[in-house]
């Protein structure tokens, strides 16, 4: 958390309402995201109780497992969820688009859209990953066979959950994290994990402060938790007795009793999920009101590529993702994730004054006045050619923590790249000598505007291209037919003990 965000939180605490942070949205929000709100049974891993899903505010679907310990009922739920998720994904495989050939790649096709799953919070995100883990290895033949839609669902959920580790990917988004990027509440980050509490700070009901509204959301009777964990008081007073009643009816073979118990359980769970459903769509509309940045669109293109690659991996008979990475894959993955994080931060700085301001306070970007310039500075290369290498000096009061050699971009001038040639500090300022290394033109034809004028106010942030993503797919997604470097042992049907 930067000091800038901390200041905003201090101000929010005093004013009683959340303070806005970033005013542009860096994450694509699909026109029709698939919202999933899962509820799970306490005490057992990946034992779903219910899920509310839908692609718009009205017309939600509710799936329920009236006896959560019943394997058959759970599989029925998973098949239902699979139909919804796989159907949603299939809808996004209807249209393709053509990317023309470039210097580095041939012409290729990819899907024109990609799925976006939205969940209320990080715990729900992790839960979908857990469901993916618990289902993608289930056998489709033999004595414990399940409907093939279920392991297929598992592979997709795992794909989505893995993609969410990659900062900047929007295939699986959780709302508490997104909201926290744009508003600073006056409470602690721990309390921000509650979607209802964050919304209360951002948009309290008339007549209440954000704090009052947030405190009211802590009463589980008025505001059921967003899940996946259910409220223990609800479990104790409502759900557990109803499940027991279901059991009694089922064991005695009373069809009517089973049906009525199911209806009651469904109604009770609906009551627990609907307030969160409303909160989710309120949050989505708050986020939609913010303008989306151009680079968000480019990251979404990368998501489309990732979606296309995984779809074709599955179409080639893709095995379920392995349980654990081999050492080489793990290292490569970590490297990718770190680069993605760094690239994401610097890309956002180019489009978002708030993020730029944050980087300034932490010394990773700076702004100031141009105090001297050498627009015509030329050097002779080893080959004997004269090339333009203009220089100028910026004086800044920011606590610059960048070293000479770093390549930077000015948000207002994307075509130029500059490099820090020298940096001298006084008690209050730093003088940064910058050399234009790209986009300056030639000595005969210098590019106008490549060098700022003396007295101009400029800002610079690290070049995201420094952290550029490589274009080829990650190793574990290279199908074996393409001679991928790592060969996986096939995971046979009998290898996961059925629960």
């Amino acid at each position, binding site marked *: 958390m930067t000091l800038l965000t901390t200041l905003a939180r201090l101000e929010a605490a005093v004013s009683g309402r959340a303070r806005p942070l970033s005013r542009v949205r860096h994450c694509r929000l699909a026109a029709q995201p698939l919202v999933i709100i899962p509820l799970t049974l306490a005490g057992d891993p990946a034992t779903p109780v219910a899920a509310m899903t839908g692609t718009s505010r009205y017309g939600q679907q509710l799936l329920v497992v009236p006896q959560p310990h019943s394997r058959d009922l759970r599989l029925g739920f998973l098949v239902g969820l699979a139909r919804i998720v796989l159907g949603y994904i299939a809808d996004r495989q209807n249209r393709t688009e053509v990317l023309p050939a470039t210097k580095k790649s041939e012409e290729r096709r990819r899907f024109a859209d990609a799925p976006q799953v939205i969940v209320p919070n990080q715990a729900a995100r992790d839960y979908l990953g857990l469901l993916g883990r618990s289902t993608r290895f289930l056998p489709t033949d033999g004595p414990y066979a399940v409907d093939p839609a279920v392991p297929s669902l598992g592979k997709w959920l795992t794909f989505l959950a893995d993609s969410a580790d990659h900062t900047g990917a929007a295939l699986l988004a959780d709302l508490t994290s997104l909201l926290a990027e744009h508003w600073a509440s006056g409470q602690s980050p721990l309390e921000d994990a509650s979607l209802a509490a964050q919304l209360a700070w951002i948009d309290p009901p008339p007549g209440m402060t954000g704090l009052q509204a947030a405190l009211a959301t802590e009463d589980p*009777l008025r505001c059921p938790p967003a899940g996946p964990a259910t409220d223990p008081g609800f479990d104790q*007073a*409502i759900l557990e*007795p109803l499940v027991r*009643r279901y059991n009694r009816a089922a064991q005695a073979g*009373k069809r*009517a009793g089973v049906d*009525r118990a199911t209806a009651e359980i469904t109604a009770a769970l609906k009551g627990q999920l609907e307030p969160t459903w409303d909160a989710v769509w309120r949050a989505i509309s708050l986020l939609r009101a913010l303008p989306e940045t151009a680079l968000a669109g480019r990251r979404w293109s990368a998501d489309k590529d990732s979606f296309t690659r995984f779809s074709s991996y599955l179409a080639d008979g893709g095995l379920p993702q392995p349980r654990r990475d081999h050492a080489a894959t793990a290292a490569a993955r970590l490297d990718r994730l770190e680069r993605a994080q760094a690239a994401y931060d610097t890309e956002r700085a180019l489009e978002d004054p708030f993020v730029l301001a944050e980087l300034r306070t932490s010394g990773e970007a700076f702004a100031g006045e141009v105090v001297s310039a050498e627009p015509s500075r030329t050097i002779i290369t080893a080959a004997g050619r004269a090339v333009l290498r203009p220089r100028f000096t910026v004086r800044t009061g920011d606590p610059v923590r960048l070293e000479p050699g770093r390549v930077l971009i000015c948000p207002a001038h994307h075509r130029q790249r500059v490099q820090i040639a020298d940096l001298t500090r006084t008690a209050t300022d730093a003088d940064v000598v910058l050399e234009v290394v790209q986009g300056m033109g030639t000595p005969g034809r210098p590019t106008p505007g490549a060098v700022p004028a003396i007295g101009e106010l400029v800002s610079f942030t690290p070049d995201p291209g420094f952290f550029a993503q490589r274009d080829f797919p990650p190793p574990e997604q290279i199908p074996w037919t393409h001679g991928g470097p790592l060969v996986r042992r096939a995971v046979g049907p*009998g*290898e996961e003990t059925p629960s």
Partner: protein
Amino acid sequence: MQEPLDALETRIAELRRAIRGALTVREQDRVRELRAELRRAERSWDALVTPPDRPEEDRQGLASLLPAREQVHQALTLLGAPAAPKLIAAVHAAFFAGQLTPSRLASLRRDEERSYRAAPGARPYYLCPALTSDLLSAARALLCVSTWPLEQRIIGPLSPRVDFLTAAIQIAEAAPSLSGAATGSASAAVDRLLRRFAMNIPGAGPAQPGGSVHAETIAAAARAEFDIHFARDHDDRAQAAVRARQQLDDAEQLFGARLAAVDDTGTGRRLPGPA
């Protein structure tokens, strides 16, 4: 007749909400009252929902002809060693017709002891607890048949393991004879039972997790480990039986010593009884 059920369900939902509210502010008395009312309402619901003209049937379509104590006796005779209610129920489900739920066993021990004291020896057998070798008192949650010799009904430190292996041998030997007559769910129950033994006895298990289990393999492996512990366990039990015959009366030899005081060494002293 839907309306009474609807009203009842509405009432039940109201009661539940009220209980939850009362729990939140910790009004214990009110919670108790509400819960009692809720139980009454639920019983009415149960009664209303059952169509009155069909008799109760168990899952396999056979009426439970035998009383619970007979069913337990059947299972224990097959097992041949003291066993816990859960194992007894599992064995019964695998090998015998009719339902035996563990909850029906809960009051069995106490009922059996009362029946014996009311008319000792009136019944051909009684179901009684196992006795611990150190204090000769009733062991928790283990049932035996009274007609077994005392040595078989006393457990020493190694006996839980030895009895587990004995049960494995008995079940494994009985399993093949059942395969001809077994129906789908019963054979699944046998398989589950065998698998549980197979997983926990070295050399008995399937080659791969989830692979098939073989009764002969299990029996052989169980016998091999049984041989390791048998001698010491046999001695423990025999010595304890000697003491039991000296110190306990007939009722206590079945149902365990009544312990009065425990001294600082943690061992028991019996109240001096009639000489």
